[in-house]
């Protein structure tokens, strides 16, 4: 254990390289971190003092990755604000329900039909449903779509997804950690987890004025240490009563997100989330043996294709409701197709609960495919639309296609 700092330094150098490369190429860094993590590991060579096997520091990197999950979920909790969601209005609630409903059903059916047991199917449903807010935001910003009418809808749905994810994660962690396999067992352990969360949220609501007062700390240094102490304590306490540690972090985020200090916390947490989050994705890749990928390729490709169909349908239904143009509907679907951090977090929870190991390479490949495909599709949505329009015209002129073509000609 002599070269421990050097080895961590080496890992961080790889992480820095992956993040810088992704930034240079204008892509999300999550796939790059996972790939570079997979590339090294026990099977990798050793060059003098540079040991790419990460055998001695493996557990340390995993631990820092765990901290990354805490920060990622704490931040999700701060962001997922039920009050704000309700204020956003009915159209967002309905649109979000449609989007999540379609994708969750598609994912669950896919998992079930490919022979996974109930809990694994629920995990697949979750990880194929939730978009990556990081990639979505990046697409909208990079392709200069902030002013587009569909952007409001897309952002509204990601906000809906945040809240959905908070509820889903809490339920699924209860289900996974309890070890229930029957439908009845799943329902009851889900119920217990839900009871715990609702209880905590009610207490949190009631305690908001008190928390507001307690957290009025002018020094940033004191503030950040106090908040992080709470974060680790609550996450650890959750673990002792069989709620995943990450759920503890999520719930603390949800409670503190209601206080007047939520924006200040978000600002302070972001660098920690980015740093430890990057280590988490790297360590996730590190824990994958690249030789197990082969067994999951078709599964991941199949799920990715189904998700593509799912988001296009959902995009169209939501788009029609919001009176978006056809290109706008395509944009909605393609942008929301991005999968990333949350899918990895979900599968990580499943692995911690001892679910089938094939979920890991499956999730990695699935995220790799969609994190790269979604920005490309979103960028080319106009051309894809033109292609669709042509196809529809050739096939006996359906009414919908005609209307769209006329609209396109008119513009």
């Amino acid at each position: 254990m002599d070269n421990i700092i050097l080895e961590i330094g080496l890992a961080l150098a790889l992480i820095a390289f992956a993040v810088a490369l992704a930034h240079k190429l204008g892509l999300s860094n999550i796939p790059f971190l996972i790939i570079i993590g997979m590339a090294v590991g026990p099977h990798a060579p050793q060059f003098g003092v540079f040991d790419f096997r990460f055998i001695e520091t493996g557990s340390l990197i995993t631990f820092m990755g765990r901290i990354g999950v805490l920060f990622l979920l704490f931040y999700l909790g701060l962001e997922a604000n039920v009050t704000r969601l309700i204020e956003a209005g009915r159209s967002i609630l309905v649109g979000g329900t449609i989007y999540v409903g379609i994708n969750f059903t598609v994912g669950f059916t896919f998992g079930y039909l490919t022979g996974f047991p109930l809990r694994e199917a629920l995990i697949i449903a979750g990880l194929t449903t939730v978009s990556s807010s990081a990639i979505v935001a990046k697409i909208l910003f990079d392709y200069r779509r902030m002013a587009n009418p569909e952007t409001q809808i897309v952002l509204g749905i990601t906000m809906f997804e945040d809240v959905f994810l908070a509820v889903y994660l809490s339920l699924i962690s209860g289900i996974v950690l309890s070890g229930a396999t029957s439908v009845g067992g799943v329902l009851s352990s889900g119920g217990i987890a839900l009871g715990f969360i609702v209880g905590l949220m009610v207490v949190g609501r009631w305690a908001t004025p008190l928390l507001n007062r307690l957290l009025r700390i002018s020094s940033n240094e004191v503030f950040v240490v106090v908040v992080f102490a709470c974060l680790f304590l609550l996450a650890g306490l959750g673990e002792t009563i069989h709620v995943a540690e990450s759920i503890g972090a999520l719930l603390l985020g949800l409670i503190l997100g209601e206080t007047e200090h939520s924006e200040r916390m978000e600002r302070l947490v972001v660098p920690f989330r980015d740093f430890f989050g990057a280590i988490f994705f790297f360590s996730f890749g590190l824990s994958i043996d690249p030789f197990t990928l082969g067994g999951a390729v078709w599964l991941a490709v199949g799920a990715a294709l189904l998700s593509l169909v799912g988001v296009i349908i959902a995009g169209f239904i939501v788009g029609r409701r919001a009176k978006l143009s056809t290109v706008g509907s395509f944009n909605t679907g393609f942008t929301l197709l991005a999968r990333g951090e949350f899918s990895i977090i979900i599968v990580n929870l499943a692995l911690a609960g001892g679910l089938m190991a094939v979920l890991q390479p499956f999730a990695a490949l699935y995220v790799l495919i969609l994190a790269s495909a979604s920005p490309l599709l979103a960028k080319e949505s106009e051309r894809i639309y033109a292609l669709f329009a042509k196809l529809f015209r050739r096939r006996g002129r359906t009414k919908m296609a005609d209307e769209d073509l006329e609209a396109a000609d008119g513009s």
Partner: protein
Amino acid sequence: MSTISEVFLPGVGRKFQVETMTGDRLVIVIHDDGTRELYHFTRRNMERPASVLRLSDGEARQIAGIVGGLTYAPRNLPMAEVILGDLVLEWFTIEEEAACIGRTIRDLEVRTRTGASIVSILEADQTKRLNPEADTVLNEGATLILAGDRRTINAVKRLLVEGRAG
């Protein structure tokens, strides 16, 4: 006045949409991190912005001051309209796509068709034409000083923009 609408963009900030009097659309996105984005859509293409400008918080504030006239108030604005009894003098700038661009005062028949007259022209390059001749060509960006009464001034502005007085 132009119409302004305001929308909340979850997780990003706020979006303001301004429909200007020239028929263009300006969308201002204020990100919570301070970044501002200005999207300019022209009348001809409302789907794709003609330009997108990104500003930092500091730049945006500075520019807001300049646009708002805090550092330099438009010199002829307070007198943009001078009323002497029924006589109205008005400063009028020829915007792009105005019907009068490239035509002369004579072939627009400004005086006969509207009753008002163009007393002076300040070209975009600051050249002054006091008492312009009838064969003076009207250029984009030029500021005209119009003289007439309320009704005839409105008629002449319509003539300049749309090409008809009625």
